[in-house]
């Protein structure tokens, strides 16, 4: 990677991908806080990612925004940049950079599973793959998400009086859970914590069907009996959750496959639903790209690097700092 270094810096055009500090030129793969930071001078991203950044950080969170449409190539000097859908959240992309015939693909965060709340993932051939590995251990094999949602619905039948508080990340996961519930023909209103409102509204603006959702500002505790309430996991652990009587604490996250981890966070009903690729998706995609070199940005990089070695692929861990285990929040 002579023209790109381990900080995801494309030197010929003085541009960083998902930089953790303010820079002059930034390409942003998607709107999650550990990828999209405020304060850059020029930002290149999809229309949706730009809108999400503005919703989260304000209209002026960067000096200039430039939109790039999916599958359209932008030429900057000798470098060609193309966005391909990453299937992670609304507006999320993989960034393909081409220079003198060499193709490097940055996955950002991604999943290959179908998702009605964002563009579906598209595979891209490349020489070098720069991939995430949030769930890069063979113990992570995410189950079918519809079956997980059915667990929630079954629990509602079993405990018709208890509010079901579901911990979800505000961007992406919340809307996906609502979407999945609607796919199961759950057509009651769904309650949401105030922190989710703006982003849910934005998804609706983008013509994603979420049905009816309501903020939880009702005083009468009885209203929430047997209802689904979505909130950021941190709110479920603080005083906010006291307005619900005898709730069942649920959490929707890929980490929930580890029972001890669910127990630690006092989750009674774990829902294993992730917006990231699991082990099989990660390794299958590496093979599919035909990449000779694989660089792992963040997550369980050791195991992916080891797997690459077993498969005669050059693997290297970049261990970028500032990347959190997103779904762990």
């Amino acid at each position: 990677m002579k023209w790109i270094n381990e900080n995801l810096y494309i030197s010929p055009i003085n541009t960083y991908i998902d930089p953790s500090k303010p820079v002059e030129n930034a390409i942003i793969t998607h709107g999650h806080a550990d990828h999209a930071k405020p304060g850059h001078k020029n930002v290149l991203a999809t229309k949706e990612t730009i809108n999400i950044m503005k919703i989260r950080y304000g209209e002026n969170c960067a000096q200039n925004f430039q939109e790039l449409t999916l599958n359209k190539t932008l030429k900057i000097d000798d470098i060609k940049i193309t966005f391909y859908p990453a299937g992670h959240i609304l507006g999320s992309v993989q960034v393909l950079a081409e220079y003198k015939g060499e193709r490097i693909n940055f996955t950002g965060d991604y999943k290959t599973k179908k998702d009605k709340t964002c563009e579906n993932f598209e595979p891209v051939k490349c020489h070098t793959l720069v991939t995430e590995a949030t769930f890069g251990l063979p113990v992570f094999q995410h189950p079918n998400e519809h079956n997980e949602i059915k667990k929630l619905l079954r629990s509602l039948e079993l405990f018709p009086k208890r509010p079901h508080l579901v911990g979800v990340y505000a961007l992406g996961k919340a809307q996906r859970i609502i979407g999945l519930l609607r796919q199961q023909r759950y057509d009651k209103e769904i309650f949401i914590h105030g922190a989710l409102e703006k982003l849910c509204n934005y998804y609706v603006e983008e013509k994603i069907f979420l049905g009816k959702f309501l903020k939880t500002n009702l005083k009468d505790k009885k209203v929430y009996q047997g209802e689904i309430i979505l909130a950021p996991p941190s709110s479920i652990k603080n005083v906010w959750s006291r307005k619900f009587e005898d709730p069942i604490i649920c959490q929707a996250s890929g980490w929930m496959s580890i029972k001890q981890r669910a127990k630690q966070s006092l989750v009674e009903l774990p829902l294993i639903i992730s917006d990231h690729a699991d082990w099989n998706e990660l390794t299958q995609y590496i093979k599919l790209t035909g990449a000779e070199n694989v660089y792992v940005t963040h997550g369980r990089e050791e195991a992916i690097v080891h797997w690459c070695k077993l498969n005669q692929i050059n693997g290297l861990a970049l261990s970028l700092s500032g990347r959190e285990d997103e779904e762990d929040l």
Partner: protein
Amino acid sequence: MRSFSELINKLLLTSSRNRKVDVLCDYFKNAPDPDRGFTLAIITNSLEIKNIPISKIKEIVRETVDEELFALSYDYVGDLAETISLIWPNKENGNLPQISKMISILKNINKNELTRKIHSFLSIANETERWALIKLISGGLRIGVSSRLAKTALAKFGEKKLDDIEKIWHGIDPPYENLFKWLCDSGPFPEIDLKNTFNPMMLANPLEDKDFINLNCNNFVAEWKWDGIRVQIIINDTKVKIFSRTGDDISLSFPEIKTLEKNMVILDGELLVGRNHIPMNFNSLQQRLNRKKVSLKHIDDFPAFVKLYDILYLNNDDLREKNWEERRNLLENWYYKNKNEFFDLSKIINFNSWKNLTAIRKNEIIDEQHEGLMIKRKSSPYISGRPKGHWYKWKKDPKTVDAILMYAVRGHGKRSSYYSDFTFGLWDGNQLSPIGKAYFGFNDNELKILDKFVRNNTIKKYGPVREVEKTFVIEVAFDSVNSSTRHKSGVALRFPRIKRLREDKPTSEVIQLCEFKLEFL
């Protein structure tokens, strides 16, 4: 296996005690016999499948999964059963047998078919069933359900008294069909064989400073807390049965303890090794524990005897309702009538004020023999469990040493995401020599500091073990030190725990191993 695995999964994830009781009640209501009885046995650790070594399971997994990937996964997940259940890549159609059938298959499995059968079970199982299956094989569910809680659920399920269940518990066997009949009002109260049944023991609470103010010393007696193992002895027609505190029959390990007494009696005491009723240290006692076959030389070198504390039954009469003074009289009568080399009477310590007793504790404790003092209320009956306000244990003050953190491993259960098992050492010349391991004593905040230190200062990894930069000093408290041939340092600490973090202390101030031995050994 499905309903069993879902039950233990639910129990693991339910934190409220009352809800756990409800979950169990529900299961007892819906599960058929003998499934519910076998499940009860597994939950209360009354039944173990010991014939399949967990190393065999690991071997089967290793044939299927790359070793390094498995090690990384295990390191991350922290629980073996979970790691295997999540990593297992093969799927087969079918249903696993019910829990009762599964137990019988596992218990009778022969070596030739072991690998094939386990492989097939793992593939047929869903992820939760796999987890439950491995827990079943490896023993120790760690789902936060004590046998007390299980009995509480039984009592609620059958609308019976918990104490009645406790009384017969050690006299009934899996799958407990007579128990469930009685609970469902379709059978009599199960009869038990008194002569062969362990009775739950009475245990002491730790003495806290505030207790002193409230207690009148005239109402109490004191005895030494001997440093052996607490036992219950049932004698009948000259036969002697010895049970550990948890109800395990350990008679076979101590065949020399005999009596000519024909009458039935149940005694409570401390098992020790030594000559002329003078105890040797705990290390010597350990030579005698967990041995199925005992050689004459062993008995010669480490002869066992019992210091008698209490009496529970005499001639089939239950004495547990009598107060301590009455029981002590009966105990002394029995002792003087049946005096022999194997039985000694625990001495009553005379004291006239708490101050006086404090001085006795300070000056008269013999390190190798006593763990501290027991303080017992004269008017107390013998109540099983750990009732409040009756017996107190007043341990001797722990010893402490400053040591350097060397290695760390992730914990289990609640702590599986924290480095919480620590190895520490002292200087041996200019090298460090590990002297022990500790995994408690610290509070949550200190654990976070330690965990962070480990993560940021790892210099080498050996599988799940991380070797750290030798810069962090911790104060370790421990009850005593024994010399040990099994440890390179030549010492073994008893009951070590991390008392304080001493990040402020330079490692050069940590003492040499030889100094430590001089001072404590």
